[in-house]
């Protein structure tokens, strides 16, 4: 079921991304302290932890939005001190945001089409005419986008400005926009926050399908422990910016430090 070797020459199970001894602080606030873990190709890797544990900051380090003061990031075999957003995007890292970050004034279709910008490199000249190569390119990518729209079952809201959509659908469109980049590594920051049970089930199904059908590696931040245990292959647990556990759902579930962290035992 796992993905075969991709264009990067990695096969399922190889380390796709490794975070090594990364620390990040904002002024005096230490968001991440000496955290190391890896993400293997083809897996669903959950990052969990209480509020303020540094989960979102970790995703921001991975796709180059924050630059860690210390540590290294190895992605597809290349080791860097820090990522750059453009490099991360062009090398196949895409993401969704904890607080939906869609392009509010644009339609569902345009939002997802915008996700294909990196793959649309036709000349500016033809863009002026919206004919010839520009139109062919537009149609070719529209076809891909329609596949995503069908996959996420959002045909009915294709032309709706996303600002007008209910929250649950916005999250779905945002997943669509991230998928449009055909990512090798998909970072999902609380894709089910604020959803009802039915919406969560839909979203879980989409995440599993993306992983199965396209072999996309996924890093998932989620507070709903039930969902995390069901979906993920391996889990890393953060607390106060430090890693306190790392392993399969079963290992993590029985880890005393994790139980303490989640039951709020005082330190």
């Amino acid at each position, binding site marked *: 079921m796992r993905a075969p070797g991709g264009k990067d020459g990695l096969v399922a199970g190889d380390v796709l991304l490794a975070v090594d001894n990364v620390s990040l602080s904002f002024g005096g606030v230490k968001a991440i302290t000496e955290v190391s873990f890896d993400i293997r190709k083809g897996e669903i890797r959950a990052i969990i932890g209480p509020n303020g544990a540094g989960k979102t900051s970790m995703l921001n380090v991975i*796709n*180059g*939005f924050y630059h860690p003061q210390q540590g290294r990031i190895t992605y597809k075999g290349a080791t860097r001190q820090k990522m750059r*957003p*453009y490099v*991360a*995007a*062009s090398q196949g890292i*895409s*993401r969704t*945001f904890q607080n939906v*970050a*869609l*392009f*509010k*004034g*644009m339609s569902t279709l*345009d939002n997802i*089409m*915008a*996700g294909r*910008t*990196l793959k*649309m490199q*036709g000349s*500016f000249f033809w*863009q*002026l*005419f*919206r004919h010839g190569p*520009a*139109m062919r*390119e*537009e*149609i070719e990518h*529209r*076809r891909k986008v*329609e596949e995503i729209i069908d996959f996420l079952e959002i045909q009915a809201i294709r032309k709706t400005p996303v600002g007008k959509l209910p929250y649950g659908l916005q999250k779905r469109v945002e997943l669509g*926009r991230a998928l449009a*980049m055909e990512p090798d590594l998909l970072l999902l920051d609380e894709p089910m926050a604020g959803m009802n049970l039915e919406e969560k089930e839909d979203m879980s199904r989409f995440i599993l399908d993306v992983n199965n059908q396209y072999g996309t590696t996924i890093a998932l931040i989620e507070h709903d422990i039930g969902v995390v245990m069901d979906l993920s292959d391996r889990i890393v647990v953060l607390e106060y910016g430090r890693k306190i556990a790392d392993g399969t759902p079963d290992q993590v579930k029985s880890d005393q430090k994790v139980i303490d962290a989640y039951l709020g035992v005082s330190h």
Partner: protein
Amino acid sequence: MFYREAGQYKTSYAADMAIFPIRQDRIGIAVILLIAFVIIPVFGNQFFLSSVMIPTLVFSLAAIGLNILTGYTGLISLGTAAFMGVGAYACYKLTSWFPGVNILVWIIASGFVSAGVGALFGLPSLRIKGFYLVVATLAAQFFLQWCFVRIPWLVNYNTSGAIEVPERTLFGVVITGANATPTARYLVLLSVVAALTWFASNLVHGRVGRAWMAVRDMDIAAELMGIRLLTTKLLAFAVSSFYCGVAGALMVFLWYGSAEPEVFVINQSFLVLFMVIIGGLGSLIGSFMGAALIYMLPIVLRMLPAALGLPIASATVEHLQFIIVGALIIVFLIAEPHGLARLWQTGKQKLRIWPFPY
């Protein structure tokens, strides 16, 4: 003649991606073009052409330029008049150096000069946003304005300090200078504006426009999706200034006939900004509507008292004009930031489902 899409099935993505997917809209555009290119020149009198249509078209083009920057890319600029000035002075220099080359070539070329200057002044936009960027464009406005006044070379050392538009022809017809007829000037202007509007429409509906709007709506997400912020913003500055530059050149060559530096002062930047706000941020049709409303309002107000036989002093009319424009801006900013264009859309939507709104 119902405005409806029923029975018009789109069988390909190309058809669905057409800019006017509904047939009645396409007919509407054809009718507007027919009126603009045939009816108005044939039936419109000289006053209507030179005092209403020509200015409105010039300002529409400038408003499209500013709208690309402000409405589509979310970068507010107060340098519009200065970029129009760059176009005007560039066109004047170019046609003075090479009088033999067709003036239309120089009008377009002056747009490129303005694009370059615009991109240069757009450089700070990567680092600064919002209020501070407005201040940076204001600095551009004042610096360029200063150049227009202080560098006599720009006007070939004319003692008047003004651009004096020479006579130029197109296909043997005089289109600039004192001997150009309003009809000739209007038709040339209309052709340029129609073509550039078509280009703008193509741009904003494709990859480039999506990148602009993505940067406007959520620059962080855009950047993390591989949209380069600097390139995208600079392109917006360049394209915007191109349109403003061409509008400036057209303003002086096809409308004013001569122009002093005072034409390109900050007031004109505000005027175009008001057109964009009232017409609708992020709408090309709105740019025309805003330009028409703001430019024609004073004309109508001036003529109204006389027509109705009301004894209102012209000073009062002028004050009235400020009050109305001011009130309109406030109303639109609060109630309908998408301006006249959105009202028009809403109206069409109502018509589409009329008489059964559910």
